[in-house]
C-alpha cells in the first residue's frame, strides 16, 4: 500500500480541555475512549478471574469445602457474563476505537458523542450484574443470577432477583454494544481515506465490520428473549411456561440465535488483527488478503444459521439434527482458509519472536485445538456423550481464552508502544507468555479428559475418580490467574515510561497507523492521507 502523507503538527483543535475526572467523563476523543474501554476490560478481566479462581478452589478436591452450591452456581454464571460482556467485548471495542481511525486515515470516530455514551453505559451495567452479591451480604435477595450465563428457562423464570438484575444488565450492555457497532460501521463506511477501497481496507477493520453487523443483527434477538423472560417472571406471560402454552426450548433458540454468532463477534476482531502481527514479525506482506475478507463474511453468514448445535440433545427431530450438524461443520471450511493464510504468511518469512508474535503463534496452535474439538462436538452422535460435560468447558476456553484473550493480548503487546510511546518490558512479556501458555494448558487440557470420562459441568462436587485431574486443573488455574498480574504490571510500567518507541515501532510494519507519531497526536489525521492505486 503506497501512501502520500503530510507532516503532522501536534495541536489542540478545540482550545482547552477539561482535566481530571471530568476529562474522562466528557471525552469524545477516540483514543481516550479506547483507553477507557481497555482499562475497564482489564479491570473486569480480574473480577471475572477472581470469581472463577474461587470456583476452581472449590473444585480442588471432591466434596464441598468452601461454599454452598447456590453460591457456586452464581459464580460460574457471573464469571461467564463478566468475561464475555465486560472483558472480551470491551477489549475488542477498545481496539476498534484506538485503531480504526488510525488505520483508515480518519481524524476520529464518526459519532464521538455516541461513543462516549456507549462506554459510560458499561460501568453501570457491570454494577447491576454484580450488585446482587453485595445485596445478599445485607440480607437482600439471594445473590446473583444462579442459572449459568445461558439463563435457560424455566430455571431463570423461577430464580431470585439476581435474574432481574442480569436481565437489565444485558439490556444496557446490548444498547451499549449496538451504539458502538453503529459508530464503527459509520466510521468504516464513511470516513476512509481517499483511495482506500473496501477491499484495500486493513483486515482488522474488516473483522470489526463483520462483528458490528453481527452485533446489530443478534443482540436485539437476545434483548427480546430476556424481555420475554422478564414478562414471564413478573407480568404473567407464558412465553416459556409449558403450562400456559409456552415452550422452554423456545428460549434456547432465542438465546443461541444470539449466542452462537457471539462467539464470532468475540473472535473476528482477533482474526482481523492476527495477520497484521504475523506480517510484521515475518517481514512479509499478508498472504491472501481478499481470501481472508471473504472468509470473515462467510463465517459471519454461516454463524447466523447454525445455532441449534448448542442444544442438539434437546429433542430436535433428525432432519434438524442433520442440518445443524452439517452447517456447523461447514464453518470449518472458511476457518481453514484463515489458518492457511496465517501459516502461508509465516511461511519462509524472516521470523522473530517478540512477545506479540509469541502470542500470535500460541494463538494459532491453541485456537486450532478449539476448532478441532468443536468439530467433535458438532457431531450429533458424539455430542450425545459430550454435551454439558467438561469437554465443552475445555473446548470453549480454548476458543475464548486461547482464541479470544490471548488474541487480545497479542494486540495489546503489538499496539501498546504505539499507544503509549514507550516500549514494554520484553523480558516480562515473554515471561507472561510462557507462564500463560503453560498454565493455560495445565488448566484446560485435563478438562477434556474429565469430560470424556463423564464429568458434568456446572456441578460443585464430583465423583472421586475425577480428583487428580481436577487438582491439576486448579493448580494450573491459579498459576494462570496470577501470571496475568505480570501483564497488568507490564502495561502499567509501559504507560508510566520506559524506552521511547519509534513511530514505526516494529521493523516490519506497514500501514497508516505506523506513520503517525507514537503516541499519536490528539487528532489522528487532520489531513487525510491519500492511498495511491497501483
Amino acid at each position, binding site marked *: 500500500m503506497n501512501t502520500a502523507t503530510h507532516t503532522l503538527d501536534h495541536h489542540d483543535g478545540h482550545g482547552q480541555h477539561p482535566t481530571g475526572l471530568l476529562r474522562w467523563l466528557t471525552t469524545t476523543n477516540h483514543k481516550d475512549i479506547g483507553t477507557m474501554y481497555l482499562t475497564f476490560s482489564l479491570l473486569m478481566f480480574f473480577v471475572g478471574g477472581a470469581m472463577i479462581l474461587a470456583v476452581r478452589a472449590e473444585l480442588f478436591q471432591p466434596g464441598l469445602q468452601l461454599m454452598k452450591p447456590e453460591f457456586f452456581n452464581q459464580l460460574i454464571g457471573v464469571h461467564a457474563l463478566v468475561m464475555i460482556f465486560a472483558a472480551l467485548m470491551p477489549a475488542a471495542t477498545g481496539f476498534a476505537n484506538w485503531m480504526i481511525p488510525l488505520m483508515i486515515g480518519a481524524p476520529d470516530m*464518526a459519532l464521538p458523542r455516541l461513543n462516549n455514551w456507549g462506554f459510560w453505559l458499561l460501568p453501570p451495567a457491570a454494577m447491576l450484574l454484580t450488585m446482587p452479591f453485595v445485596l445478599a451480604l445485607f440480607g437482600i435477595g439471594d445473590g446473583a443470577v444462579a442459572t449459568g450465563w445461558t439463563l435457560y428457562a424455566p430455571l431463570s423464570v423461577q430464580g431470585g432477583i439476581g435474574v432481574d438484575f442480569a436481565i437489565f444488565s444485558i439490556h444496557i450492555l446490548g444498547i451499549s454494544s449496538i451504539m458502538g457497532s453503529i459508530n464503527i460501521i459509520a466510521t468504516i463506511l464513511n470516513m476512509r481515506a481517499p483511495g482506500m477501497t473496501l477491499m484495500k481496507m486493513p483486515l482488522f477493520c474488516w473483522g470489526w465490520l463483520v462483528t458490528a453487523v453481527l452485533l446489530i*443483527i443478534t443482540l436485539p434477538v437476545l434483548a427480546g428473549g430476556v424481555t420475554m423472560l422478564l414478562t414471564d417472571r413478573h407480568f404473567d406471560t407464558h412465553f416459556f411456561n409449558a403450562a400456559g402454552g409456552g*415452550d422452554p426450548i423456545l428460549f434456547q433458540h432465542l438465546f443461541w440465535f444470539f449466542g452462537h454468532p457471539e462467539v464470532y463477534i468475540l473472535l473476528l476482531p482477533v482474526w482481523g488483527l492476527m495477520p497484521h502481527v504475523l506480517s510484521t514479525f515475518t517481514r512479509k506482506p499478508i498472504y491472501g488478503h481478499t481470501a481472508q475478507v471473504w472468509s470473515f463474511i462467510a463465517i459471519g453468514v454461516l454463524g447466523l444459521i447454525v445455532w441449534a448445535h448448542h442444544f442438539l440433545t434437546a429433542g430436535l*427431530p433428525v432432519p434438524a439434527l442433520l442440518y445443524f450438524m452439517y452447517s456447523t461443520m461447514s464453518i470449518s471450511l472458511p476457518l481453514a482458509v484463515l489458518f492457511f493464510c496465517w501459516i502461508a504468511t509465516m511461511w519462509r518469512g524472516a521470523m522473530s519472536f517478540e512477545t506479540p508474535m509469541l502470542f500470535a503463534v500460541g494463538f494459532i496452535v491453541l485456537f486450532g485445538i478449539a476448532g478441532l474439538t468443536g468439530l467433535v462436538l458438532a457431531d450429533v452422535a458424539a455430542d450425545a456423550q459430550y454435551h454439558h460435560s467438561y469437554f465443552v468447558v475445555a473446548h470453549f476456553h480454548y476458543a475464548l481464552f486461547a482464541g479470544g484473550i490471548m488474541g487480545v493480548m497479542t494486540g495489546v503487546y503489538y499496539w501498546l508502544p504505539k499507544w503509549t510511546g514507550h516500549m514494554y518490558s520484553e523480558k516480562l512479556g515473554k515471561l507472561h507468555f510462557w507462564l500463560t501458555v503453560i498454565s493455560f494448558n495445565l488448566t484446560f487440557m485435563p478438562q477434556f479428559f474429565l469430560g470424556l470420562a463423564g464429568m458434568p459441568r456446572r456441578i460443585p462436587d464430583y465423583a472421586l475418580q475425577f480428583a487428580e485431574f481436577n487438582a491439576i486443573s486448579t493448580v494450573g488455574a491459579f498459576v494462570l490467574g496470577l501470571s496475568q498480574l505480570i501483564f497488568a504490571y507490564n502495561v502499567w510500567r509501559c504507560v508510566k515510561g520506559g524506552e521511547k518507541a519509534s513511530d514505526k515501532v516494529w521493523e516490519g510494519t506497514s500501514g497508516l497507523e505506523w506513520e503517525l507519531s507514537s503516541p499519536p497526536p490528539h487528532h489522528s489525521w487532520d489531513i487525510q492521507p491519500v492511498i495511491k492505486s497501483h
Partner: protein
Amino acid sequence: MSEATLPPPRRHGRLVVRLLLLAAVFFAFGFALVPLYDTLCAAVGFNGKTLKDAIDAKDLPPAAVNYNRKLGVQFTSTLMPGLPWEIRPLEPAIEIHPGELRTTRFLVRNLSDKTIVGQAVPSVSPTVAARHFRKLDCFCFKQQTLAPGESREMALTFIIDGDIGDEISELTLAYAFFPAPNPS
C-alpha cells in the same frame, strides 16, 4: 493549521437511521419467532407437541383400522413442583391398531387440603409420532380443578392415524401436570 484543512464533515444520519432500523427489525424478529416456532412445531411435530385442540370425529378419515399392525403405546406422568397431587395412568401400556379409537384413563388425586387448579401438558416421543397422535378428547385441553382430597379419573380419547411411519412400533405419551398459571 486552519480548520479549512480538516476533511469536510460527513453526514452519517441516514446510515445511522438504517442501522437502527435493522436493530429494530431483529428485535421484532425475536418476537416473531414465538408464533413461528409454534407453527413449525405443530406442522412437523418438533418437540413432541401434539395438537392443542380436539379434532372432531367427523374430520377423521373413514375408519380404516389396520388390523395387521400393532403399536405399543405407553403412558407416563410427572408432577411439576408446587402441585401436591398424585397422578398415575390406569393402563401404563397398551397395544393398539392404527386407526382404532381408544379411551384410556389417568387417576388424579389432590393430596392437599386446598382446592387446586392444574394443567396437563402432553409430549410424545419419538417426536415425529406426535402429529399422528390425534386426540378427540383430553383432560389436557383445559384446566382441571380438584377439591381438597378429591380424586378423579381423567379420560383421554385418541386415535393413531394410519399414516404413521412403519419404523415406529412403540411410542410414549408423557403428561406433565403443572400448577395452572392463571386459574380461571
